């Protein structure tokens, strides 16, 4: 087990900068996710940690030791790719034993380690089978076992669940989290799926075009996103953004929209200054928009019943925003309604999309008033 540290790592492929001055510290025993859209540099980050890529600048540390120039085979970091690549002609036992046989471990030791790994992963009854006879989830576990059997100092997983169907993904999510807790091993998990990034890790790094946008616990990222990009990739449906104009009257920060105004409390400390008259965005998540008796007037654009809840799409000025409502609420398209934005869950972004102030659950940071 070991911590992993990337210090100002840059990696270019021709004209493309896959990683741009990335600094991240992954704690010993931590479940750490890297979230980003395709092309964000997630896989390059993993490949750099394991040693399949050499950074153009910067350094990689494992357990405090600089490993930038250490040969991949000598790092003792296991990596599992999306494509499992089990040996089809070997049994599960043979697949698990393979890395140990390669390392010329004694026979008794191999048997002991394989059985122990199989026990942890609940695949003992499968040891005699060939991969073709396994279900998708079972194959996943075997591949994981093969990565774990050498007792690596860290385990890296590249979108391990993306090839599985939705139900199995749900099960494996819970399973992986349990496993990581039981093993207590440093785990770096790359994904483009925000649900996976929210539900499993201790902390998550959000990556965009090779640049780290934010590193924090999933909940902190959810409630205090660093910018609009982060606020959009975390949460489903994504956060709503309403364009507004800054009014810095009597020392208080206020964002005015045609239908409402959001005002920050006198003591609130914005992350960056906003000029009077500058464009800005009010951000609010669908679950924090409530259809109410009084409040901001809006028009129903469409409704999306999802069973356990209904997404109500509301036209507000030029924009359509989403609200989450109980499934019992029934609304016709074009109906006039009133909505409330939960002031304890409002965010204010500057015109470039960087965060200025998040209420993050606190009452009294913002007040919201209809125009």
């Amino acid at each position: 087990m070991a911590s992993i540290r990337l210090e100002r790592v840059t990696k270019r492929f021709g004209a493309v900068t896959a990683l741009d001055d990335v600094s991240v510290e992954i704690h010993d025993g931590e479940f750490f996710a890297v979230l980003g859209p395709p092309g964000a540099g997630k896989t390059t980050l993993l490949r750099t940690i394991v040693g399949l890529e050499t950074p153009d600048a910067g350094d990689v540390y494992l357990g405090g030791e600089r490993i930038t120039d250490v040969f991949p085979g000598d790092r003792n970091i296991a990596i599992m790719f999306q494509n499992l690549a089990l040996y089809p002609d070997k049994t599960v036992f043979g697949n698990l034993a393979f890395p140990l046989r390669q390392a010329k471990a004694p026979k008794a030791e191999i048997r002991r380690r394989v059985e122990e790994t199989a026990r942890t992963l609940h695949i003992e009854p499968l040891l005699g089978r060939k991969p073709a006879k396994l279900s998708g989830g079972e194959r996943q576990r075997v591949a994981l076992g093969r990565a774990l059997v050498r007792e690596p100092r860290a385990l890296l997983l590249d979108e391990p669940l993306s090839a599985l169907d939705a139900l199995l993904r749900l099960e494996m999510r819970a399973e992986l989290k349990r496993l990581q807790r039981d093993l207590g091993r440093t785990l770096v998990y790359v994904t483009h799926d925000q649900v996976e990034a929210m539900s499993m890790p201790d902390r998550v790094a959000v990556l965009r075009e090779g640049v780290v946008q934010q590193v924090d616990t999933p909940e902190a990222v959810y409630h205090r996103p660093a910018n609009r990009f982060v606020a959009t990739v975390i949460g489903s449906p994504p956060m709503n953004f309403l364009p507004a104009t800054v009014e810095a009257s009597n020392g208080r920060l206020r964002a005015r929209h045609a239908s409402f105004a959001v005002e920050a409390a006198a003591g609130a400390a914005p992350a960056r200054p906003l000029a009077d008259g500058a464009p800005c965005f009010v951000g609010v998540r669908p679950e924090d928009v409530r259809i109410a008796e009084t409040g901001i007037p809006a028009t129903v654009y469409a409704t999306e019943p999802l069973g356990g809840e209904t997404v109500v799409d509301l036209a507000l000025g030029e924009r359509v925003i989403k609200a989450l409502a109980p499934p019992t609420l029934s609304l016709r398209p074009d109906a006039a309604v009133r909505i409330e934005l939960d002031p304890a869950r409002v965010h204010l972004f500057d015109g470039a999309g960087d965060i200025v102030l998040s209420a993050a659950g606190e009452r009294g940071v913002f007040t919201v008033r209809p125009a």
Partner: protein
Amino acid sequence: MAAIRLEKLTKEFPGGVVAVSEVDLTMPDGEFIALLGPSGCGKTTTMNMIAGLERPTAGEIWFDERPMSRVPVGDRNVGFVFQNYAIFTHMTVRENLSFGLRVRRPRPERSQIDERVARVAEVVGVSGMLDRKAGRLSVNDMQKVALGRSMIVEPAIFLLDEPFSNLDAAFRAYMRAELKRIQHEIGQTMVYVTHDQVEAMAMADRIAVMNLGVLQQFGSPLDIYDRPANTFVAGFVGSTRINILPAERLPVRAPAGRDPGTLSLAIRPEYTRIVPPDSPEATIGAKVNLVEPLGAKDVVHMSWEGHDVRTVGTPGARPRIGELVGLAFDPSRILFFDEATGTAVN
């Protein structure tokens, strides 16, 4: 515009694979219909038969009162949108949109074409980019153009096969509302093929759930969600998996005349809630295995007598891992299924 009726519709491929088996279904005129199911369930083959791209081996397809199985594709007056945007990248957005009208004989008046292009561009949201080359657009906008292209010829029926599955999640969430709104405005019959239950639930007036070539249930989204016809539908629909447990071992009264030993009890996670273990409300006592915070809600995974059980709640006080909790089932939301066949029991 037309209603679509499938009558014992069957497609058997050479080699004996029955992709679609005796599907009976009436899609009312002007409705938004989703064909939902896992890959290999027969949904795309069903759509291809409606379109005329595949010929049924048995059964019939009716558009209103007209049998269609011998009518060639070009004469069916259907519009398609596929996963891969079928647009001409070297043409402008305007040229792409007007294409279907320009190739018509007799060719409509120029002013008529312009008017239709303007209207369709407005509906699909590409008005601001009419003179840009289609190849220069974002993939999201390309798919809007593809949608507009098939709309402009005003087909009687619109067929969409997973049109947004290659696009990012935020855009998909946005297009769900847009497409529903478009269908509401143009009032055309729309058939939408998807494996994503959220899309089907969100947009469709009615959903046809298919599995292994067989129609499992046809109903409104809330029908499918709250009154699933069998355990397959119950499990396929819903973003947190429904709980299915042996009825016999639960303190719940079984439907009259049924032996609880032959029944499964099912309840959706959001219709259960955590209570103290000794609370009289507790239906079962369960051990907490895992808490998944998803932002807007928490999913709590538990085990009860060897079965996995899940509940969904608003984030708040979270149970500890290993803690024993009570789980209360909302009695009005309990469903029963025959344990052997999986069919709903009322």
